[in-house]
């Protein structure tokens, strides 16, 4: 197993599997109290959210969530440890998916108690034998004070961490088959003036990947450890292996041990106790036989918990561990929601990372809106240039169109600015102005699913559906839309433009069937925006898909057109023609 002192020097990052807010929170509390500048949990593999919020000290932090280990890999790069909280049935598959995605990881901990033996042995073969450190199945994991908390070992309440000085390394290694007893023993060690060098719970299953034998060898190899405190149980042959290690000189550090389960010797039939391994099949597996064998090998074996506590207290004391003041964590309160857009700061209001005065100094409204849409400053000037051009071209397309008309009708009915603007905005949808997002989805799915344009068109023709971004009432082949021609200037500035190329390939087919089925302004905006986000802003396909799902592309219409609607509203107020009503011959009464 992994050398403990190397973990102490370079603890590494954790990818967690499953939902266990309280367990993850103490890992963050541990990290924070250890003085780390960032949480050790880099991500969580779970289906349920994009981020999960945790306390980081008194403040809060968002940890990204991923549906699979592969997606985590794509986003996080490398992590060193897995913390697997999945159920026994899912532990095997998720562990395999972790090491497939992160073949260089150091190891992990599996928390589930009901992992089938066959799965446990397969994991042992695949990973432990290939120099990974896999702790469990079952048990509560590994704690290296000041460095790594991989599991619920040491508690899930920061007050437990503080009370037992788990942020500062000591010299007593605590090794245990039982998750509950390891914490009991950590408490005895800490309250008797000692501090632990590391605590490892290999668990009470029959085939833990990291065996007691390996844990003892790790304690022997660890320079910080001077004494070993061990809790074992009836069942299995582990303690006889430990005796071999001690008598052959492979473990030389003094050991204090308690082996539980003498109560099992009072019955005719062997009794199955709480842990899977806790059943003595024969004499050598009884607690008494193990106690005797260990005592003969020179281990200080306690006959009762009282003696065990005393023996731990008698371990020579090193310097008292430093106390870490954790009182700042008391009384913290979770926020109701998270925001990355703006905040109040000492310099006034900050918007996307800069005070509003600075935005004013820069004087570029297009840059500010582009930053607002991306949630961060754009990496490329081309992005801002494109959005500026889109806005300038989309501000208004005449009073006849549905949205402008509704604004005008509402204004003439005597309503105010907000009502009239809202009437116009609420008109935007699948048939009016809302086609940019639909077109973006067409081009995105066509490219990422490697669709053949002919088949794409054919499938829509069969279903008698329109393709978003294709077709115009007025412009047609031979009569090009001047707006799309202006936008097409951006094509040459991009190193590559696969979405635009796909849209043009679709247009080539549809316009050959009917001259008006050209790539329209919505379709052009959608295609070029996708290409610019991918080429200039380096967004991944997943990130693009999220933007499509969030209706990002329609914002490119809504924002400039808001200006157009306001213009129509004010215009109507100036002209003041009175209430608008259709004449009878405008309506066919069927």
């Amino acid at each position, binding site marked *: 197993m992994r050398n403990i002192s190397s973990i102490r020097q370079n603890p590494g990052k954790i990818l967690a599997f499953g939902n266990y807010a309280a*367990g993850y929170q103490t890992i963050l509390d541990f990290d924070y109290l250890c003085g780390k500048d960032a949480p050790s949990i880099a991500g969580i593999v779970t289906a349920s959210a994009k981020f999960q919020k945790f306390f980081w000290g008194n403040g809060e932090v968002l940890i990204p969530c991923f549906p699979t280990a592969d997606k985590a890999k794509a986003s996080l790069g490398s992590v060193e440890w897995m913390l697997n909280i999945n*159920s026994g*049935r899912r532990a095997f598959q998720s562990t395999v998916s972790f090491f497939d995605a992160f073949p260089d990881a150091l190891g992990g901990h599996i928390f589930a*108690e*009901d*992992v*089938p*033996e*066959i799965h446990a*042995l397969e994991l*042992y073969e695949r990973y432990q034998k290939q120099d990974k450190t896999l702790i469990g199945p079952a048990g*509560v994991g590994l704690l290296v004070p000041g460095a790594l908390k991989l599991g*619920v*070992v040491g*508690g*899930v*309440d920061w007050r*437990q961490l503080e009370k037992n000085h788990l942020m500062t390394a000591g010299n007593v290694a605590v090794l*245990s*088959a*039982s*998750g*509950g*007893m*390891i*914490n*009991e023993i*950590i*408490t005895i060690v800490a*309250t008797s003036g000692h501090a632990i060098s590391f605590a490892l719970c290999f668990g*009470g299953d*029959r*085939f833990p990947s990291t*065996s007691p034998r390996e844990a003892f060898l790790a304690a022997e190899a660890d320079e910080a450890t001077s004494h070993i405190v061990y*809790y074992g*149980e009836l069942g299995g042959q582990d303690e006889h292996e430990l005796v071999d290690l001690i008598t052959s000189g492979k473990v030389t550090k003094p050991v204090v041990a*308690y082996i*539980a*389960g*003498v*109560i*099992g*010797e*009072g*019955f005719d*039939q062997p*009794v*199955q*106790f*709480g*842990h*899977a391994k*806790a*059943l003595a099949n024969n004499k050598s597996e009884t*607690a008494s036989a193990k106690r005797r064998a260990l005592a003969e090998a020179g281990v200080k074996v306690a*006959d*009762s*918990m*009282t003696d065990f*506590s005393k023996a731990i207290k008698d371990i020579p004391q090193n310097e008292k561990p430093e106390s870490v003041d954790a009182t700042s964590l008391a009384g913290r309160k979770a926020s109701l929601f998270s925001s990355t857009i703006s905040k109040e700061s000492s310099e006034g209001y900050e918007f996307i990372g800069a005070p509003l005065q600075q935005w004013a100094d820069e004087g570029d409204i297009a840059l500010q809106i582009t930053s607002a849409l991306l949630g961060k400053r754009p990496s490329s000037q081309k992005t801002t240039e494109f959005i500026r051009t889109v806005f300038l071209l989309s501000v208004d397309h005449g009073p006849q169109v549905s949205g402008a008309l509704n604004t005008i009708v509402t204004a003439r009915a005597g309503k105010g600015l907000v009502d009239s603007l809202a009437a116009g905005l609420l008109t935007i949808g699948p048939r009016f102005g809302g086609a940019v997002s639909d077109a973006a989805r067409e081009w995105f799915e066509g490219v990422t699913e490697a669709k053949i344009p002919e088949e794409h068109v054919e499938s829509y023709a069969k279903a008698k559906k329109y393709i978003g971004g294709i077709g115009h009432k007025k412009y047609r082949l031979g009569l090009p839309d001047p707006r799309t021609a202006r936008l097409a200037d951006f094509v040459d500035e991009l190193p590559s433009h696969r979405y635009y190329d796909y849209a043009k390939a679709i247009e080539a087919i549809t316009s050959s069937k009917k001259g008006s089925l050209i790539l329209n302004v919505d379709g052009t905006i959608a295609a070029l925006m996708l290409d610019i986000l991918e080429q200039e802003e380096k967004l991944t396909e997943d990130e693009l898909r999220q933007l499509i799902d969030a209706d990002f592309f329609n914002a490119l219409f809504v924002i400039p057109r808001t200006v157009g609607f306001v213009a129509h509203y004010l215009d109507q107020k100036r002209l003041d023609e009175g209430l608008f009503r259709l004449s009878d011959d405008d309506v066919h009464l069927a």
Partner: protein
Amino acid sequence: MARVKLSEYRAKSLLVDNYAGVSLRLSSLDDDIATLDENTPYVVKVDQGIKKRGKQGLLRLNVSKQAARAAVEELASKGFTRFIAEPMFTHEENEERYVSFERAREGIAVQYSEQGGVNVEENPASVQTFTVDTVPLPKAFVQHVIDVMNREHLSFVEINPLIVRDDECVLLDAAVLADSAGEYQASWDEDDVVEARQPTETEAAIAKLNQNSPAAFSFRILNEDGALWLLLSGGGASITIADEAMNQGKSSLVGNYGEYSGGPSTEETYLYTLDVLHQALTSKAPKKAIIIAGGVANFTDVKKTFGGIIQALDEKLGDLQEQGIRVYVRRGGPNEVEGLAMMESYLKKNNLFGSVHGSDIVLTDVINEALEHVDA
């Protein structure tokens, strides 16, 4: 989580193609007997995982279909409910072999003896350890057993006696331990699991609670008229606490072993406690104590679980007071201070108070305090 014993009938159904045995259950005896063959003589055995049935008189030889009912009813009179009928197989005693396969860390360990049958324990030296590749048995048979073990999550297969005639292997008796964690992928189920003793009502109720919860609950009666009733948390701490009664030479006073762990909800803890209290209240011991104890929990919430325990105590309060039962508590973990304070005030108010401690006393001291009360 642990290994469980399957019935001989299920074990052989898994291991033998076209197995000719029949399962006979008291609950469906007429239908089961109807499937027996008119002209075949059978051996009828108790099928509840008991060893040395021949020596204990738990099998009947040469039973015809007509006589099957009488044979089963006679065996049932000794308190059994599951039986198996198999066609008689005549062989010589010196043909009997012993073989066992056990899943171990480095593969399947095989034990084999030429001198099998009921006397194998008298010839322990004849049992030798082999690997799957070296055991002197037909390769196809060995491979078949290994395949079934892997497919069905079997951890231990013992066949004794085994009769080998050329390439044919006949399993006269088979005992199988299956990995209960693998049940969801196997073709056997909970109904195939046998126990040598019938679980008591309380044990069965808690086994069911355990099955339907992500947390873990166990309970086993050790002495129906015990004086110490244990409501313990944690697989390790529970053994350690029970050990202390043994250390004090008082293990005969312990009524039960059991534990709850894995962060049970308030409601689950309430149900578990009710079952334990029911058993404690039926004990005929003159002075009784309930011990609510555990180590310093990593994640099980003390306040939440104690809430469930108090709810159950309250439901049985009249009976507990009438019998003068005292409650002794020692526990640590998340929300320890709040949980212990709540428990102490409840016990004192209702005259059940024995003692309440946090992690400042040794885990097992609480047993000694309770012993002073029941064993004065």
